[in-house]
C-alpha cells in the first residue's frame, strides 16, 4: 500500500498551523490578565491529545506518524504538520477525525514496545575506540539508524494489514469523494476556482466549523486536532489540467486553492498533508509556487522503475528523500539538519530514513565508477564474456 504510494517521484507538500486558538496573546510590554494561564501569566498552550508543546516557538507539535521523520524535521521541534496515511492513523489513535481511508494497522502498545526494544538492542553501544586508519571518520556524526527517543510521540504501523474495522467505526472521520459532490453537467463551474477545488474547500470549511476546530463552537469533549489528507492534488482526477498541458489558461487554480486552504488551516486547530505528482506537472513554475505556499516540503524519489533499482550502489535502500523546505513559523531560525543526502528503507513495520551510505568500493579500478559505468559493468559481469570491455574510462596508472 505504502509502496504503491511512493512509486515514482512525488512531492509531499504540507501545511502547518500555529495553534493560535490556544495562545493568550500577551504583548511583551504589558501584562494582560488573559484567562489563559495560572498565576505565572503568559500564554499557556492547550493540552490536546496527540500533541506536544514546543518550548522553542510556542506552538503545538504533531507527529508526522513516522518517528524517523519527526526526528529529522527538527529533533521533535517540528511545527504542526502531518504525513499521509500513517499520520491519519495517528489521528485515529490519538485524536480522531482524519479524512482518509485505507489506513495501515497501528502497532498498539505491546507490539510497539517490543519493536522499540528490538531496535535498541540491535544497536549495541560501541566502545569508544580510536580509529587508526580511517581516523577522519571518527569526526563524522553518528547517524542513528532507528528511532532513539524512548518517549513515544507517534506510533508504529504494520503496512501489511489494514486498520481494524472496529477502530475505524469507533472514530470520527469524514471522507470526500469528488464525483459525489459534482453534478454531472458541470454547469455551475465557477470561473475563479475549479469546481472540484471549490467543493473540497467548502467541505473542509464545513467540517472545521461543524466539529468546532475553529473555536466557533468549542469542542465539548477532549480537544483534538483535525488531520486532513489530500491525495494526488493537481492530477486530472481533481479537474485540473496542469499535468496535461504546459501552458494552460488556468494554471493558478491549484495555487489559489492552496492559499485558501492555508488560510483555513491557519485559523483552526488542524494540520493537512497533501501529496502531489510533481513529476507529472508540465510547468515547473507551478511546482515552485506550490513549494512557496507550503510550510514543509518533502520529496520522495522511489527507485522502483528507474535504473537505480538494479544499481548495486543503492541496493540497501528503496528510494531517496529530499527535504526541500522545513517550517519557520514564529521564528527567524529553524532546525536545519546537516545531513542532506537521505535515503529511505521501507520494511513491513518500519519506515527508516538514513544518511545515504555508499557501500565500500571493492573493485579493481582506481576510482569509483560512475552510476552509468557501474550499470554497464554489472551487465558485463552478467554476460560473462568481455565483449563490452570498455576500460578506457578508468584511469589506471
Amino acid at each position, binding site marked *: 500500500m505504502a509502496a504503491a504510494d511512493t512509486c515514482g517521484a512525488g512531492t509531499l507538500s504540507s501545511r502547518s498551523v500555529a495553534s493560535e486558538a490556544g495562545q493568550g496573546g500577551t504583548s511583551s510590554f504589558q501584562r494582560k490578565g488573559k484567562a489563559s494561564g495560572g498565576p505565572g501569566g503568559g500564554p499557556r498552550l492547550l493540552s490536546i491529545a496527540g500533541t506536544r508543546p514546543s518550548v522553542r516557538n510556542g506552538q503545538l507539535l504533531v507527529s508526522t506518524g513516522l518517528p524517523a521523520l519527526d526526528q529529522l524535521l527538527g529533533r521533535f521541534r517540528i511545527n504542526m504538520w502531518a504525513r499521509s496515511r500513517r499520520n491519519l492513523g495517528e489521528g485515529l489513535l490519538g485524536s480522531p477525525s482524519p479524512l482518509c481511508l485505507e489506513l495501515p494497522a497501528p502497532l498498539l502498545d505491546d507490539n510497539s514496545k517490543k519493536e522499540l526494544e528490538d531496535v535498541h538492542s540491535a544497536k549495541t553501544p560501541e566502545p569508544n575506540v580510536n580509529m587508526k586508519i580511517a581516523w577522519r571518520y571518527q569526526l563524522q556524526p553518528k547517524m542513528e539508524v532507528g528511532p532513539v527517543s524512548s518517549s513515544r510521540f507517534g506510533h508504529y504501523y504494520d503496512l501489511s494489514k489494514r486498520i481494524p474495522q472496529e477502530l475505524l467505526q469507533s472514530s470520527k472521520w469524514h471522507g470526500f469523494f469528488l464525483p459525489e459532490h459534482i453534478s454531472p453537467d458541470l454547469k455551475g463551474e465557477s470561473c475563479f476556482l475549479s469546481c472540484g477545488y471549490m467543493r473540497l474547500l467548502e467541505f473542509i470549511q464545513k467540517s472545521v466549523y461543524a466539529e468546532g476546530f475553529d473555536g466557533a463552537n468549542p469542542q465539548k469533549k477532549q480537544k483534538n486536532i483535525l488531520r486532513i489528507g489530500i491525495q494526488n492534488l493537481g492530477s486530472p482526477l481533481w479537474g485540473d489540467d496542469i499535468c496535461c498541458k504546459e501552458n494552460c489558461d488556468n494554471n493558478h487554480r491549484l495555487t489559489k486553492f492552496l492559499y485558501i486552504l492555508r488560510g483555513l488551516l491557519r485559523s483552526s486547530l488542524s494540520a493537512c498533508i497533501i501529496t502531489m505528482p510533481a513529476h507529472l506537472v508540465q510547468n*515547473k513554475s507551478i511546482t515552485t509556487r506550490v513549494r512557496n505556499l507550503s510550510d514543509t516540503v518533502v520529496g520522495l524519489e522511489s527507485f522502483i522503475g528507474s535504473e537505480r533499482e538494479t544499481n548495486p550502489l543503492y541496493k540497501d535502500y528503496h528510494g531517496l528523500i529530499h527535504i526541500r523546505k522545513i517550517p519557520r513559523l514564529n521564528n*527567524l531560525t529553524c532546525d536545519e539538519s546537516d545531513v542532506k543526502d537521505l535515503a529511505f528503507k521501507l520494511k513491513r513495520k518500519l519506515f527508516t530514513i538514513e544518511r545515504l551510505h555508499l557501500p565500500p568500493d571493492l573493485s579493481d579500478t582506481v576510482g569509483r565508477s560512475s552510476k552509468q559505468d557501474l550499470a554497464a559493468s554489472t551487465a558485463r559481469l552478467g554476460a560473462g564474456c568481455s565483449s563490452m570491455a570498455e576500460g578506457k574510462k578508468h584511469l589506471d596508472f
Partner: protein
Amino acid sequence: MSGCRKRICLKSHLFCFLANCKVCFVALVQSFSHYNIVGQKLGVSLTAARDRGQLVFLEGLKSSVEVLFHSQDEPHPLQFLREAGTGNLQSLYTFIQDALKPADSEESPWKYPVLLVDNLSVLLSLGVGAVAVLDFMQYCRATVCCELKGNVVALVHDTEGATDEGNDTLLNGLSHQSHLILRAEGLATGFCKDVHGQLSILWRRPSRSTAQRARSLTYQYKIQDKNVSFFAKGMSPAVL
C-alpha cells in the same frame, strides 16, 4: 529557502520604520501572530502598534477565507479572489490609500507613511497577472512616495532555477523602479552552518540620468534566534 531569508530584511525594515512612521502592512504569507512573535524577538510589539493606530495590518490568509465564504457588504481588499481573469487590484489599492492617507481633521503623530508588502509573488499565485501587479505598484508609488513622501518596501521571490515568466517580468519591472534593491540568497557553494547566506545591496537612482554608477555592497549573514549578524565576505566569526 531564499524566500525565507528575504523576510529578515523585511522585518528589520518594518521595525526601523515603526519608530516614527505610519505603516500599512499587507501580509499575504503568514498570520499576524507569526509576525508579532518574530517582532517581539527583535524588540517591537506589533500588537501595541496596531492598538495605538500606527499599524494597519491586512492579514491575507484570514481575509481570503472571509472573502470566499462570507458575503461582503463592501468591496473587500482581496475582492480579486472571487474574480476570474487576470485580476484587478483596485480594491487593494483603495484599502492602502485609505489606511495611509492622513485624516484631514487631526494632526497625525506619525510623519511619513510606509507600505510593506509580503509578498508580491503570492499575488501571481492567486491569479493576478504580472502586469496588473506592476500597475498596482505604480499606483502605490504614486500615492505613497510622490504624494505622501513615504516609502514602499515589497518582497518578491527570485525564482532563478524555474522558468517563471510572470515572476521574472515582475522582478525586472520592480528592479527598474526601485531605489534600493536587497537580494538575499543562499551561498553558491551550498549549505553552511555558520554562514546562512549572502545579502547584496544595490543603490539605484532611476530618476537621474547621470552617468553615476549604481553602488553595491555584498555582505554575508547568519540568522540567530533573536538577531541577524552581518559580516563581510569571508569574515565569518566561525572562520576567523
